[in-house]
């Protein structure tokens, strides 16, 4: 039997506010344990939360970018459960009246655009961090992260394969980074993803029994975990068994999903409206003000790269994957260097040097220097081959390509007299090859050019070399 996979994703994005969602404690990552805490985020009796306006504003931004509706009235609710990372005994979240509903994000499947629905986005507070003791049955609690604002983004079950899920996730990730509302760091947990996955026979209207996957902290893990779980469920169904609805943890070391232990009452949260917080009112004028602050989004920028720089769609898509990468490309192009040439250098040489496209600006080669390098090749100062050597130097030293060319004597020999002397020497020393050339073997030209490059350590202007050999050989 053939099965159809159904996937929905829940993303928790940490919002890049300076302070927590309900108090003025800093959200700095990596501060000493429990130094960013106060009566509110410690859950001390008598303290009262006050909503961070910026967190709401970031939520509005994401809503606008995802073509979603911002609800004029939304409300915080208490999600009740006992766990030591949550000192109040409940998480302040949103339940039946979220900030945002009905959005969509387009992904590309087999060159066709597919729209993935976003059910809702809501604001909530993050929990603290537990570190379990290796030897004794105890845990250390750090509440610095407790109260960090999160935007939970819930997709419709519109995704039909692990690959689609990852593409959606990347699109969402890129969007949040463009909006500058989330730093997107999956290892540090600023962008976390849980997945619901189920299988059903092709053509069936009802969804199958789903499992929820957690603990996937990279795009690669998300893909691998979903692929594993897809196989696991298919095997169960093919053997006539039933999938148990449960939460599974991805174990990246073993490459398998495992049932999560504990939290037996996990789904009896007894939500109720939080009496400590008033309804959140967002009027049209606020939404419109935020609309004017929206930056150019990935899709628009991709189209502009095709239209105004004449880049192939593939290049445009790759270069706009990260905001920093697209910025880099545009700054390099601003030197006057041809866009397609810059794109080639960025995509083939520069991206090889960094672990993630977003880190491109942290590298040694500034966009101005790369643009200059491309210009120097274009105007014939150096050959493309020497350009590669100059580039290697730029990576290690961070120097201006002009400085490197002067220091290393990389300049291309375009002086006709100088080259002519060498060309004549080579021709005189190679009577056999001259005879072959005369006999019509034009391929032997490669030999002559090669000899010249050897003598000049690759710095002869190849175009001029070709002209000179052709002229001199014909004159024989």
């Amino acid at each position, binding site marked *: 039997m053939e099965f159809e996979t159904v996937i929905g994703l829940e993303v928790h994005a940490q919002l890049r506010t300076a302070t927590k969602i309900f108090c*003025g404690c800093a959200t700095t990552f990596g501060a000493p344990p*429990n130094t960013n805490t106060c009566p509110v985020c410690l859950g001390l009796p008598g303290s009262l939360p006050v909503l961070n306006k910026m967190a*709401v504003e970031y939520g509005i931004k994401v809503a606008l970018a995802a073509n979603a509706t911002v609800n004029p009235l939304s409300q915080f609710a208490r999600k009740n459960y006992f766990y030591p990372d949550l000192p109040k005994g409940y998480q302040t979240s949103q339940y039946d009246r979220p900030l945002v509903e009905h959005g969509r994000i387009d992904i590309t499947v087999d060159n066709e655009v597919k729209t993935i629905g976003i059910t809702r986005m809501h604001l909530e507070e993050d929990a603290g961090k537990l570190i379990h003791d290796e030897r004794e049955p*105890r845990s250390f*609690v750090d509440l610095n992260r407790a109260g960090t604002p999160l935007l939970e983004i819930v997709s419709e079950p519109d995704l039909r394969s692990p690959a689609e899920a990852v593409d959606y996730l990347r699109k969402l990730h890129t969007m949040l980074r463009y909006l500058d509302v989330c730093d997107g760091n999956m290892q540090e947990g600023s962008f976390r993803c849980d997945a619901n996955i189920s299988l059903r026979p092709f053509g069936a209207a009802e969804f199958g029994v789903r499992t929820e996957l957690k603990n996937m902290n990279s795009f690669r893990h998300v893909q691998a975990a979903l692929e594993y779980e897809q196989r696991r469920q298919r095997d169960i169904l093919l053997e006539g068994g039933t999938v148990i609805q449960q939460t599974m943890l991805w174990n990246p070391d073993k490459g398998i999903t495992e049932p999560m232990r504990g939290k037996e009452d996990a789904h009896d949260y007894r939500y109720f409206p939080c009496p400590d917080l008033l309804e959140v*009112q967002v009027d049209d004028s606020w939404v419109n003000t935020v609309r004017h602050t929206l930056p150019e989004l990935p899709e628009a920028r991709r189209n502009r790269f095709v239209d105004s720089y004449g880049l192939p769609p593939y290049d445009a898509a790759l270069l706009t994957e990260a905001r920093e990468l697209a910025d880099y490309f545009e700054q390099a192009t601003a030197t006057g260097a041809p866009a397609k040439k810059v794109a080639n250098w960025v995509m083939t040489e520069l991206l090889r040097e960094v672990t993630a496209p977003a880190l491109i600006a942290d590298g040694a080669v500034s966009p101005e220097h790369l643009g200059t390098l491309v210009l120097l090749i274009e105007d014939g100062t150096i050959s493309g081959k020497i350009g590669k050597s100059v580039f290697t130097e730029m990576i290690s030293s961070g120097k201006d390509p002009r400085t490197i060319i002067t220091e290393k004597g990389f300049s291309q020999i375009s002086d006709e007299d100088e080259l002519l002397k060498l060309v004549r020497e080579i021709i005189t020393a190679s009577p056999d090859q001259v005879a072959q050339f005369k006999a019509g073997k034009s391929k032997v030209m490669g030999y002559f050019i090669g000899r010249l490059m050897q003598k000049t350590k690759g710095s002869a202007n190849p175009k001029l070399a070709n002209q000179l050999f052709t002229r001199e050989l014909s004159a024989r």
Partner: protein
Amino acid sequence: MISRQEVEHVAHLARLHLSADELVRITEQLTTILAYADTLAAVDTDKVAPTTHAAASTTAFRDDIIRASLPLETALANAPARDEQNFIVPRVI
């Protein structure tokens, strides 16, 4: 009407340990309380906007400006157990 099983379940969720006598008494009391809620629920509120808060006021927002956190010693002052920097709790998972 609330069943004894429901009371036991809710008590467990709230980490309350009730004796057999208490369970009987509280089941009765909760039944009375819920009956009162039923009276309220009987009112037709279809055309009434939900009241979420007694204070008729708009949202109180805070600007995104950092304020001093508590000194570490103060933050950990009420900890049942602690080390230099952390609260310590019995391991849960």
